[in-house]
């Protein structure tokens, strides 16, 4: 099976074609095709994972590729690359996608573009799987862009409302901004790798130090721009909260498995490049970790002022992605991708819960929720589990992975990152407590009668909740040596690198207790504020203190980043460039066009007046007149009398005869 990994992305792609061509005629409007295909992909992924884990270390990565186009010495190929990282991603993507597919049959029931939705969902999954298994950077780019297109299609699923289509365009354009970097990076690294797109080859060269540091730095920075766009890192994170305009299952898919983690996956996949380019082993600060750290804090702060429950979760995702990027930036490779792994479960869970709530109350706003814990018991229970896992409460999924990141930052000599990570943990716990309170406690503030969602939605919630509880144990001694996450989720050839900083780190009680204390403090403080109505001095602070109000306004306006992009950057570009373009258009282009026109007209006139009228007509008229003149002269010869003709004939004959005689003598 390790040799036939190409089947895994192919199945959803086939499903996409089937749904597109025959979806509306299928008994379940195409949903069954998507579920079967993604389910099969998941089963195959499990088989692949079992094979991979079953092999004895040291394992060899398995590559298969075929050349699609040979141009000189450069081959453009398509292929598959299987190693621990691939296996982990295959599991996560196909599993989350399967859950989302099942959930969508309930959530999207009766939607006018139900079939289309499932087609796009299948393609989305196929693209992400294609990206994950690719062995060369070009194929990677293809998957990457396909993921972007699918997210565009799905975020704008309800495009009738301008807001939604705007959000889709924004998501697409913002990620495209980063993609430019990615493309340049891939080209740079193509030359750096001496004319090869193969990722493993490139990584090996980077590891061996065969590529100059400057070249790697340029390539790495460009690639990282792609990551910043795709994984919604500061300062290009603004598209992700707006992407909440899409249907909630799509949000879950984007946030947990298919879209945003592509950026993190890219860093993990090209890790030797980043490692060498940004000198991650030097400690202190570097670009990757600093961007991750900034993202953690700014996104977590924004999560406090959101009313839309999905936006709280969106900013939470941005923040958690910041953790992953920071983890990779501080050299804690395994911790970073482990966080990706656990985060996928609880974030998908939280989004699907939010979807269930929205399905029940028909509003995204927490100000129209409240008191739902009795009305939607399963949604309530699973949401709480998800929140606790996200907050890093001990022995749930998020606790282990976040703790490893903090430990990595600590051990590898990144004290600032450790502090930021702890601050982030505190804020995460606090804003999730706020969200839980606003949704499930207090009085119900909306209209209508909320009800628990159908089983097709609740069952995925229960499954994901179960996994959110246990996923974190995957990297502990409990599952045994062979199954332990850090032992199988590896990239052969780079173990030395990704395990350089004690991947095997034992559970550190002191670090763990600090992070737990911080998380509990966050929950506690936030809980006191909301549940016990304590912390009175904080109430109305934004009304009394100008500083607090200014901060609040800053947060509500999302640091004015959107204004910066749309008004200042786009606006300033739009204004002068548009004017310059207008000037250029009016003066230069129109001048050229008019000049050409006037020239053509002058030439035309000249041709008409001189050549046509004088020369050509002169010839024609002259020929006519000449013919007429000569005719009128010659007509006198033409008397019609045969005898005159005969006389002329004989005279001529006589003349010729005389001439002949004269000449021959």
């Amino acid at each position, binding site marked *: 099976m390790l040799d036939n990994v190409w089947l895994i992305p192919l199945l959803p792609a086939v499903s996409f074609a089937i749904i597109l061509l025959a979806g509306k005629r299928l008994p379940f409007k195409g949903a069954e095709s998507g579920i079967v295909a993604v389910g099969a992909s998941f089963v195959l992924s499990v088989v692949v994972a079992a094979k991979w884990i079953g092999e004895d270390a040291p394992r060899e990565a398995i590559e298969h590729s075929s050349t699609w186009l040979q141009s000189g010495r450069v081959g453009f190929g398509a292929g598959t690359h299987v190693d621990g990282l691939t296996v982990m991603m295959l599991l996560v993507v196909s599993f989350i996608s399967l859950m989302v597919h099942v959930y969508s049959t309930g959530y999207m029931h009766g939607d006018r573009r139900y079939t289309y939705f499932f087609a796009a969902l299948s393609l989305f999954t196929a693209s992400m799987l294609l990206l994950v298994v690719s062995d060369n950077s070009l194929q990677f780019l293809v998957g990457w862009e396909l993921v972007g297109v699918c997210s565009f299609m799905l975020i704008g699923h309800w495009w009738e409302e301008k807001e939604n289509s705007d959000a889709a365009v924004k998501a697409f354009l913002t990620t495209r901004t980063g993609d430019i970097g990615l493309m340049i990076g891939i080209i740079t690294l193509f030359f750096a790798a001496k004319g090869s797109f193969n990722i493993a080859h490139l990584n090996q060269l980077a590891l061996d130090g065969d590529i100059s540091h400057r070249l790697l730095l340029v390539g790495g920075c460009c690639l990282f721009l792609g990551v910043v766009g795709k994984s919604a890192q500061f300062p290009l994170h603004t598209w992700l909260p707006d992407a909440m305009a899409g249907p909630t299952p799509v949000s879950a898919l984007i946030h947990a498995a298919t879209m945003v983690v592509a950026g993190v996956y890219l860093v993990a996949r090209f890790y030797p490049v980043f490692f060498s380019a940004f000198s991650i082993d030097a400690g202190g600060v570097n670009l990757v970790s600093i961007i991750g750290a900034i993202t953690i804090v700014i996104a977590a702060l924004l999560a406090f002022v959101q009313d839309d429950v999905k936006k709280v979760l969106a900013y939470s995702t941005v923040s958690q992605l910041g953790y992953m990027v920071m983890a990779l930036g501080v050299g804690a490779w395994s911790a970073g991708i482990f966080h990706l792994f656990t985060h996928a479960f609880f974030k998908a869970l939280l989004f699907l819960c939010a979807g269930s709530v929205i399905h029940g109350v028909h509003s995204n706003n927490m100000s129209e929720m409240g008191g739902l814990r009795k009305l939607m018991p399963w949604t309530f229970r699973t949401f709480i589990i998800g929140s606790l896992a996200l907050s890093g409460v001990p022995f749930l999924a998020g606790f282990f992975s976040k703790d490893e990141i903090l430990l990595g930052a600590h051990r590898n000599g990144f004290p600032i990152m450790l502090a930021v990570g702890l601050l982030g943990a505190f804020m995460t716990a606090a804003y999730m407590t706020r969200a839980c309170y606003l949704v499930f406690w207090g009085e119900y503030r909306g209209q209508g009668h909320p009800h628990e969602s159908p089983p097709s939605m609740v069952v995925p919630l229960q499954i994901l909740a179960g996994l959110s509880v246990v996923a974190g144990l995957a990297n502990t001694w409990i599952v045994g040596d062979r199954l332990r996450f850090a032992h199988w989720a590896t990239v052969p050839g780079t173990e030395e690198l990704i395990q350089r900083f004690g991947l095997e780190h034992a559970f550190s009680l002191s670090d763990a207790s600090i992070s737990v204390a911080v998380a509990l403090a966050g929950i506690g403080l936030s809980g006191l504020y909301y549940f016990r109505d304590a912390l009175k001095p904080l109430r109305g602070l934004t009304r009394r203190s100008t500083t607090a109000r200014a901060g609040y306004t800053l947060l509500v306006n999302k640091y004015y980043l959107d204004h910066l992009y749309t008004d200042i950057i786009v606006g300033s570009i739009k204004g002068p460039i548009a004017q310059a373009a207008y000037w250029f258009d009016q003066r230069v282009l129109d001048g050229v066009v008019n000049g050409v026109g006037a020239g053509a007209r002058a030439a035309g006139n000249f041709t008409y007046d001189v050549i046509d009228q004088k020369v050509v007509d002169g010839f024609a008229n002259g020929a006519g007149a000449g013919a007429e003149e000569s005719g009128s002269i010659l007509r006198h010869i033409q*008397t019609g009398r045969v005898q005159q003709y005969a006389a002329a004939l004989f005279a001529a004959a006589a003349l010729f005869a005389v001439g002949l005689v004269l000449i021959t003598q």
Partner: protein
Amino acid sequence: MYLSQFLLLAAVLFCIGIYGVLARRNAVLVLMSIELMLNAVNINLVAFGAFRHNVIGQVFALFIIAIAAAEVGVGLAIVLLIYRNRTSIDLDEVDLMKG
């Protein structure tokens, strides 16, 4: 036997023919004059043939006689049609092709 005598006879006949063709107004007489000219040529050919002791001259003469017969046939038919149309065979009056 002197060749020049035959040639002289032929030349005289030819000139009479030319005169007839050019001066006569009656179309039938013009045709007859053409016959004179053709026969003058025949005399020439036969005379040359006899002079050179071969028969080629007589062969040509026979061809010319045949063609002359055809020519007279066509010519008389035309004259007949002109007469039917115009009740006249005066060539001076037949100038339809006047430019």
